[in-house]
């Protein structure tokens, strides 16, 4: 039976392996969410988190581009109101809003015949159409992981793009490495999904994370 960790727990676990994440806070109440948002600045993002909540977007549990304390207060109340008893304990995750034009997906899985594998692919709304993804078996050394980026079909995604600098390869690889190292280290992890990895000013940031345990 597979169980999942909440987004916040997933990120905490992977940050320990070097996953680049935002300065985020988890809070229990709408009031605490406002305090956290005031502190980190606007615009910000609010998400409802919990171990049993694996697919936030499908359930409309993410509020983007919140510009004021009032927006945060109202959104926080709404999100807490959307929690069901099946969700168990929930909390609010407050994060700065990142503007990015490029997205990648990074993941890992150990259920197939080759055992643990790590993946990177082009993310965003066309990800399902492009299906531009590359796998490696784990463990993989730095050179083997680096070659994954060369194997993506859509190489233009890595270069300079709409006035933004080229992707910092080392930083994007740090996401892949963190995921890979966690898979090697923690045999109780069944799969990891980092979707999306946003590219802001060339830098990779894991904006969502989901760790599933065996």
């Amino acid at each position, binding site marked *: 039976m597979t169980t999942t960790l909440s987004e916040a727990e997933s990120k905490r676990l992977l940050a320990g392996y070097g996953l680049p994440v935002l300065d985020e806070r988890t809070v229990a109440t709408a009031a605490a969410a406002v305090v956290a948002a005031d502190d980190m600045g606007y615009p910000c993002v609010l998400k409802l988190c919990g171990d049993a909540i694996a697919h936030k977007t499908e359930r409309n549990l993410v509020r983007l581009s919140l510009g004021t304390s009032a927006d945060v207060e109202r959104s926080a109340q709404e999100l807490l109101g959307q929690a069901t008893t099946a969700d168990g304990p929930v909390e609010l995750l407050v994060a700065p809003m990142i503007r990015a034009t490029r997205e990648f997906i990074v993941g890992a899985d150990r259920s197939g015949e*080759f055992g643990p*594998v790590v993946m990177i692919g082009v993310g965003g709304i066309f990800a399902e159409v492009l299906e531009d993804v*590359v796998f490696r078996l784990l463990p993989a050394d730095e050179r083997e992981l680096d070659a994954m980026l060369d194997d993506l079909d859509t190489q233009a995604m890595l270069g300079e793009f709409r006035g933004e600098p080229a992707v910092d390869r080392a930083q994007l690889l740090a996401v892949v490495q963190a995921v890979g190292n966690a898979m090697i280290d923690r045999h109780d992890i069944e799969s990891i999904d980092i979707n999306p990895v946003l590219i802001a000013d060339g830098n990779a940031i894991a904006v969502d994370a989901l760790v599933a345990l065996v």
Partner: protein
Amino acid sequence: MTSDKQLTSDLQRLPLEPLFEPAGVVVAGASSHPGKFGFAVLHNIITCGYQGRIFATNRNGGTLLGIDCLTSVADVPAGQADLVYVCVPASAVADVLRDAASVGIRAAFIASSGFGEGNDEAGAAYGAELVVLAEELGMAIAGPNGQGLVSTPASLCAQFVGPFPPAGGVSIVSQSGNLASGAMNYAAASGVGVARAISAGNATCLGVDDYIGWLADDPATTAIVAYIEGVADARRFFETVKRATTHKPVVVVKGGTSDEGARAAASHTGSLATNDRIFDGMLRQAGVWRSPDIGAAFGAAAALAVHEPMRGPNVAFLTTAGGWGVLTADAMADSPVRLMDLPDDLMDSLDQVLPPRWSKGNPIDVAGGETRDTIPDALHLIAAHPSVDGVLMLGMGIQSNTAALMRRGQFSDFEDIDRICSFHERQDRRYAEAIVEASAAAGTPILAATELALSNPENPGPATLREHGHPCYTSPAEAVAAFSALYARGKHLRLP
């Protein structure tokens, strides 16, 4: 290459010498009917010139193709044979293997079917018994349900089909018998010969990775081509091919890639982790060159078997005519290798040997102004330049093609026609020889491409390359793919 010994022992490599270098061969179940496996294999072993001892068994004894048949494998003099090729029905195979072991035979190729490939219970039991016997008898068991094997260093054609390819460095492992034949047909056509070839059949005991692992250490093998549909132990396969590519280039064709089944339309790792995507990543990680079909695989393996890997992506073209160079440059734009800018010192040296109207850039187009030694001199100069990683020769064979028309026409006895035709033909031969010599001297791959290799294989250009065991590609795109494989190989070996 440092961890080689350790990995070899870790993976418990089976010695396959008795399979590929047997001192004597027994055909168990030889037949007097030319339509049966048991006739064809004995015929092929004898006629292709196997020099070891040849035995055959037949329930009724008798003489077959000059061989006095024994009635049982147990009657083979002890120590006289290493390999038994088995054509008897599945139910009789176990006894044949036990008899074989009793006279010192250490390897078997089982052509017979009926070992569970049809999903029947009795067959599956025979298959399971083979695994037990391999262990119990310490025997290398290939097949069952396979075509056979070829080993040119031993002049051995132990298969019930053709062809028997010319000798060379490419070794072939196939989970499909007819694709093993397919690769060997390309070998026969190209002149780039084969060292070993085996059809793995059901791969009940010896799997594709066992053969690849052995071939990696085989001195007769310079490149390995494998056709794979599935592997029994995915991790073991990966470890084996990864080790193999530290020794030899490996080219893989994977079959069954379209059968991926239904997937959920969601972007998470589980749904994107199709077998083929993971297999593809695994091959890249292991340093394997993947080709879409057997023809392309053989084309890549031919270049890898004959030439040094490329140290970089820089390719220079030498051409005697324009359009080909343009299309090849287009094909190269979509590949990892590139049409290089010619360094100034190479331009200067080329000015000394090329006619004044040459293109002064890459493609190096001599614009039809060549004399006797222009092309050979230029090939040597270009290949020897340190910044050139590969050379493509286009336009070889044109002169002989002209000569062929003149020789066939009603004016063939016109004064001087024979002399001029002979000159044309000598020139194409000279170009091909220059390709062979200059690539060896400089350690730089020189590939030739001309459709004449297909339309007129006897043209002295492609024919001479074939005689020297060098590939001649039939299109620029094929040559570009071969360069890409040579460059990937260089990158994998971290050249320079």
